[in-house]
């Protein structure tokens, strides 16, 4: 799609207009030439960054070897937040693992819920009612906005634009208010179930969402005005961390990082789930593949999310009162009021909570999360104990892309690069 973006004096844009400085020249010119007479020539300094560092967005540790200001080798060390999620799934069972998925990529808990639920539903061959799917789409798009707001706020604060942090967190608070009204908790909501969602969206929540969606595009325009033309933001992001299409694919990158490199691929379009094929939206792609392009892609994705969420709201208004949770008592918990009044439903509740059995077999399902392809590969042997639940975390791949993009660049580019690759350690380490 073509985007209307800010044009800086040297030309920056996503709509096919390349910048006047070709990226190849810039990246070749960036490492300063070494003076052969320099007494320190060839001597590298070891620098440790993290695991407790404000710019690594969590507990990532980077081991750097610096030649002056230039990074010669970069070695990410992950695992500082490894909590053993996959093992936990094997001991807890399928249903009780839901709250753990929230805490994977904790800036978008409901999105992870949906990804996990979809994998289980695919394994169980269970269909979700129309209204349940629409509610899920609405929640996922709100989560996507919330996650991109974290990207924008934290990356901007790392690059010196402190006011952006307050601007984006103000809007995140509005998303929290919506989720608080709907689920009763601000974060880690665990509101998605196998077969649908836990509760229906009522009119009060709808009104909150509508109000939020009406205001957000203006806010996004304001942020773009603050950042896109900002000399510091532009210069620190432009031509930093340039990814080509081939590189992005070879390094298994997905999501905004892949789209920033110019690949028009979005799982919502390519392999639709939850009825995404019925929504109108466009996929923004970059031209150069640098941090600035990834920034533009994410900002545009927020606008598209607003579009999708607005369509979801319209669908919700049409299907008011319809079923939002499947009625399959092999996998789906009965509603609480019926549990309290019917012996049969009480037995179902007990059976599902204590040992939920999924058919023997295996399934993979991936969703387009804010970081990329979030996939769950689940293997069941027909008993209530999962054999394997592998979480394909897009964030891990984003971390893996740091060394090839950073080596040879200046130390200060690292902060922009970490921000724009966008990962959350909860998901990277699992």
């Amino acid at each position, binding site marked *: 799609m073509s985007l209307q973006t800010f044009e800086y004096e040297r030309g920056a844009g996503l709509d096919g207009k390349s910048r006047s400085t070709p990226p190849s020249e810039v990246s070749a010119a960036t490492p300063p030439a070494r003076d052969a007479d320099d007494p320190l020539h060839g001597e590298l300094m070891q620098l440790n960054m993290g695991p407790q560092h404000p710019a690594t967005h969590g507990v990532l540790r980077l081991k750097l070897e610096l030649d002056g200001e230039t990074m010669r080798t970069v070695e990410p060390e992950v695992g500082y937040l490894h909590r053993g999620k996959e093992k936990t799934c094997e001991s807890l069972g399928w249903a009780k693992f839901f709250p753990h998925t929230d805490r994977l990529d904790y800036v978008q808990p409901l999105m992870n819920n949906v990804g996990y639920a979809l994998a289980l539903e695919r394994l169980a061959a269970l269909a979700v009612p129309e209204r349940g799917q629409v509610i899920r789409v609405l929640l996922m798009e709100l989560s996507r906005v919330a996650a991109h707001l974290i990207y924008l706020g934290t990356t901007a604060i790392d690059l010196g634009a402190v006011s952006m942090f307050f601007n984006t967190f103000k809007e995140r608070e509005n998303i929290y208010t919506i989720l608080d009204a709907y689920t009763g908790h601000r974060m880690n909501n665990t509101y998605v179930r196998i077969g649908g969602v836990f509760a229906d969206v009522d009119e009060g929540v709808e009104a909150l969402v509508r109000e939020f969606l009406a205001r957000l595009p203006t806010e996004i325009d304001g942020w773009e005005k603050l950042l896109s033309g900002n000399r510091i933001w532009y210069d620190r992001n432009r031509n930093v961390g340039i990814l080509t299409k081939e590189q992005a694919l070879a390094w*298994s990158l997905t999501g905004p990082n892949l789209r920033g490199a110019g*690949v028009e691929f979005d799982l919502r379009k390519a392999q639709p789930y939850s009825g995404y094929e019925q929504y109108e939206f466009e996929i923004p792609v970059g031209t150069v593949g640098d941090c600035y392009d990834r920034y533009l892609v994410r900002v545009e994705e927020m606008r598209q999310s607003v579009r999708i969420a607005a369509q979801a709201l319209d669908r919700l208004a049409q299907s008011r009162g319809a079923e939002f949770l499947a009625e399959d008592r092999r996998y789906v918990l009965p509603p609480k009021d019926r549990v309290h009044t019917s012996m049969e439903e009480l037995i179902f509740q007990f059976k599902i909570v204590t040992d939920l059995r999924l058919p023997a077999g295996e399934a*993979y399902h991936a969703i387009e999360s804010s970081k990329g392809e979030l996939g769950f590969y689940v293997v069941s042997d027909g008993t209530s104990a999962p054999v394997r639940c592998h979480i394909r975390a897009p964030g891990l791949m984003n971390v893996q892309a740091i060394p090839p993009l950073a080596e040879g660049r200046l130390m200060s580019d690292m902060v922009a690069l970490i921000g724009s690759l966008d990962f959350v350690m909860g998901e990277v380490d699992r």
Partner: protein
Amino acid sequence: MPGTITSERVDGALAGIEHRWLVHRDGLPALELDLAGLAHALRALKERAGFESATFVTAVDRLPRVPRFELVHQLFSLAHNERVRLHTRLADGENAPSCTQLWPGAAYMERECYDMFGIRFEGHVGLKRLLMPEEFEHHPLRKDFPHQGIEPDRLYREWDKKRRAEWHPEAAR
């Protein structure tokens, strides 16, 4: 629905390499290979069938089945919007071929697989633990490893003892 989906493109690329299509539940073509043919198959899928990207590389511990492990590669082709999953059975102590030469993105996946299951990948440059500390002795996702771990705080206690001895030698005595 369970059934067998086959892909002619994959079949064509794997001509000459023994493979069996599997029954799946998720609509993805899945096939089983022998360990001996795995390296060839991966190369063929990359070069002849155009799978540009590795989605994940992981393993499943099927204890007490023999052989114990099942190595799972899932590949993705952007041009054809197609996925394929490869299953390879592997005994404890057997090495698997690394596919990092084909997909550099698989490096962390294989490191994670080594970390969690103890499966070594031949040809992987820098195969070491990814998530657990290098000195950790176990492979957590093996079925015979308890969820609560075996002495989970051992490494910290050793570090703490050293730190106390260095910083407060009089207290350590």
